[in-house]
C-alpha cells in the first residue's frame, strides 16, 4: 500500500510532471505533521480510496464539459439514482449480503452495480435528449435546465422511495480491515481503490489506444475540425454522456456502500466536491480529474485528522491555491 502513491500509473502528458508530483509531495509532507506512521498510512489509504470514488463520479462530468462544452449541474442526480437503484437489488438479496463468502457477496454486488450503471446510463440518454439538446451552446440555459433536472430527479426519488435514509450495509466479507503490522486498511477501501484504478486505466486505454478515444480527444481539442472531417460528433457525445452518467451511477453505489446509507440529498454534497475536482483538474482533462480527486480526498482526510473543523473549507482553499498557480486547472486541455 505504501508505494501506491509513488508508483501510480498517473497520466503523463509530456514534460508536465508537476501536477503528478503534487499529491505525492503532499502525502510526504504530511508524515512529520501527522507523527505516527501507521495513522499516516491508514489516512493515505483512505484518501486514495475516497479519491478513486470521487474520480469515478467526476470523470464523466469533465469529459462531457470538455467534449461538448456542456456544464451539467444535474450530474449529482445520476449518483443518487445509481445508489437508489442498487438498493432494488441489494434489499431482496439481503441474505446473500449477510453470507460470509466473498464470492456470494460479489455475486449480488456486481449485478447491483451493473443495474445501477444501466439505469443511470439510460437516464443520461433521456436527460441529454430532453434537457440538454435544446440548449446547446447556451451556458446560462444549460445551467438552469440541468439544475431544474436535479430538482425534479431528487424530488422523484423522494416520491418513489420516501424521504427517509435507507441503510445499505456492507457485505460481511468486505467489512473489517486488513491488518499489516500496526497498519489497518479497511477491506472495502482496497476494493474501491482497485475498481477506481481499473476505471482509470480503462478510460486511459480507450482514450489513448482506440480510434474512438482519438476522436474524443480530438473533439475536446477542436470540435469543429472533427465535424469538418465528417464524424458525427453529436453521436459521439451522446455516448460519452451516457458513459459518464453510468460511471456516476457506479460511483453512487460505491459511495453509498462506503457510507452504508442512501439518501437523495447525498448528491448535493458530492456535486460540490465533484465540481471542485473538475475545476482543479482542468475542465476536460481525465488525468487532471484523477489527480484533483486524490488531492481533494487527501485534503479532506489529512485535514479532517489535523484540523477537523476545516474539512470543507479546506477544499476551497485547495481550489484557490491551485487556481492561483494554474488559472485553468492542473491540465488545460480545451481551447476554451
Amino acid at each position: 500500500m505504501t508505494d501506491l502513491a509513488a508508483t501510480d500509473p498517473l497520466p503523463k502528458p509530456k514534460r508536465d510532471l508537476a501536477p503528478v508530483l503534487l499529491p505525492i509531495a503532499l502525502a510526504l509532507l504530511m508524515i512529520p505533521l501527522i507523527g505516527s506512521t501507521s495513522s499516516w498510512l491508514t489516512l493515505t489509504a483512505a484518501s486514495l480510496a475516497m479519491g478513486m470514488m470521487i474520480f469515478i463520479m467526476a470523470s464523466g462530468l469533465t469529459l462531457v464539459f470538455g467534449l461538448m462544452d456542456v456544464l451539467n449541474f444535474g450530474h449529482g442526480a445520476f449518483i443518487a439514482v445509481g445508489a437508489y437503484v442498487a438498493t432494488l437489488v441489494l434489499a431482496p438479496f439481503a441474505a446473500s449480503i449477510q453470507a460470509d463468502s466473498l464470492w456470494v457477496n460479489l455475486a449480488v454486488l456486481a449485478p447491483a452495480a451493473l443495474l445501477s450503471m444501466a439505469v443511470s446510463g439510460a437516464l443520461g440518454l433521456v436527460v441529454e435528449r430532453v434537457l440538454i439538446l435544446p440548449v446547446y451552446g447556451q451556458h446560462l440555459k444549460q445551467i438552469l435546465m440541468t439544475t431544474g433536472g436535479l430538482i425534479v430527479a431528487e424530488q422523484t426519488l423522494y416520491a418513489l422511495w420516501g424521504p427517509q435514509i435507507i441503510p445499505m450495509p456492507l457485505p460481511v466479507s468486505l467489512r473489517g480491515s486488513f491488518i499489516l503490522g500496526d497498519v489497518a486498511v479497511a477491506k472495502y477501501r482496497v476494493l474501491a481503490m482497485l475498481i477506481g484504478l481499473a476505471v482509470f486505466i480503462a478510460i486511459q486505454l480507450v482514450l489513448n489506444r482506440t480510434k474512438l478515444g482519438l476522436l474524443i480527444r480530438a473533439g475536446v481539442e477542436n470540435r469543429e475540425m472533427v465535424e469538418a472531417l465528417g464524424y458525427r460528433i453529436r453521436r459521439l457525445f451522446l455516448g460519452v454522456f451516457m458513459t459518464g452518467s453510468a460511471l456516476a451511477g457506479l460511483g453512487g453505489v460505491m459511495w453509498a456502500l462506503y457510507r452504508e446509507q442512501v439518501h437523495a440529498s447525498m448528491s448535493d454534497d458530492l456535486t460540490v466536491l465533484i465540481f471542485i475536482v473538475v475545476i482543479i483538474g482542468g475542465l476536460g482533462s481525465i488525468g487532471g480529474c484523477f489527480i484533483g480527486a486524490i488531492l481533494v480526498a487527501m485534503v479532506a482526510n489529512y485535514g479532517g485528522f489535523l484540523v477537523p473543523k476545516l474539512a470543507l473549507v479546506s477544499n476551497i482553499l485547495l481550489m484557490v491555491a491551485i487556481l492561483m498557480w494554474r488559472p485553468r486547472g492542473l491540465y488545460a486541455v480545451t481551447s476554451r
Partner: protein
Amino acid sequence: MMILSGDPPRSRVLTLLLVVIILALAATPFLFPGAKALNVAAKICVFAALVASYDLLLGYTGSVSFAHTMFYGIGSYAIAIALYGMGPNWAAVATGIVTGLPLAALLALAIGLFSLRVAAIFFAMITLAVASAFQVLASQLSWLTGGEDGRSFQLPELLRPGSVLISKSLFGFEINGRILTYYLVFAISGLMILALLRVVNSPFGRVLQAIRENRFRAEALGFRTVFHLTYANCLAALVAASAGILNALWLRYAGPDTSLSFSIMLDILLMVVIGGMGTIYGAIIGATIFILAQNYLQSLMGVASKAAGEAGLPLLPGLLHPDRWLLWLGLLFIASVYFFPTGVVGRLRKAGGGKSAGGPH
C-alpha cells in the same frame, strides 16, 4: 415615470397585476387578518427584493451565481448575532447593519475578483463551492451562530407586537409594533426594488446588458467588463444582505434553514426564471406566485394526494404529497426555461404587443 426610472411595465395586464400585488401587500394587515397572511406578505416583500437583486446578476449580466443565499445569510446572521449579543436596542440594529453590509460587499468583491480572474465559466461552480463552505462554516461556528439551532433574538421595544402605537378604539384597527415592522419591511423592500430599477436603467445597466449579449464586443468598445461585473456582483450582494436583515428582523430569528440553505438558492432561481429574467418586475411576480404556491398550494396538494390515495391509484399519492410540491415547480421551471425563457413578464409584454426588451435569449 421618474420613480420607475423610465422603465414602466409596458403591458396593461402586467401593470394591473403589479398594482394589485402592491396594493394587496400594502393593505395586508387590514384586509387579511391573522398571523399567517402577514407572514406570507412579509416573505413576499423580502423575497421580491432578494430575487430582484439576483435578477441584476442573472438577468442583466447573464452570470449564474449560487452564492446569493450566502449574502442573504450574512445579512440575517449579522443582525441576529448583534441583537442576540448586545440585547434588544437600536445600537445593536445599527451594529448589525454596519458589519453585515460591508462584509457581504467585501466577500462579493473577493469572489468576483477571484472567479473573474479565471475562466468565466467557473463562476457558477466556484460560487456553489464557496456557498456550501460558508454553510458548513456557519453551522460549525456554533459559539457565534448557534449552529443548526440558529439564533433567536428580541427586537427593540418599538417593533415588538406588545407595543401598541395606535389603539383599536381610534380606527377599529390596532397598530402595533408588529405591523410597524411589516411596513418597515414593505417600504425598504420597495425602495430597494426601485433602486435596482434605477441601476439597470442607468448607463451602467446598459453596459451590463451589453456584456450579457456579447462580452467580447463590450470589451472591444472599451468597457472594463471585469470592473462592471464585479460592481454588479457587489451591488447584488448588498441588496441581498439587506433583504437578509429584513428577513431576520421579521422572523426574530436567523438559522441555516431560513437564510442559508441551498434550497433557498433554488427557490430564488425558480422565482426569477418563472417571473421573468432581466425585467426586475419579474421578481415581484415570481416571488408572489412562488410564495403563494408554497404556502397555499401545499394544502391543496394534500387534499389531492389524499383523494388519490383513497381512490387507490398507485404512485400518485406519493407524487402529490404536499412535501413534493417542489417536484412540480421544478417541472414548471424546466418548461419555462424551455418554452418561455422571458417568464411571465416577457409573456405578458409580448401578448400586450409592447416592444419586448430585456431577458437573455
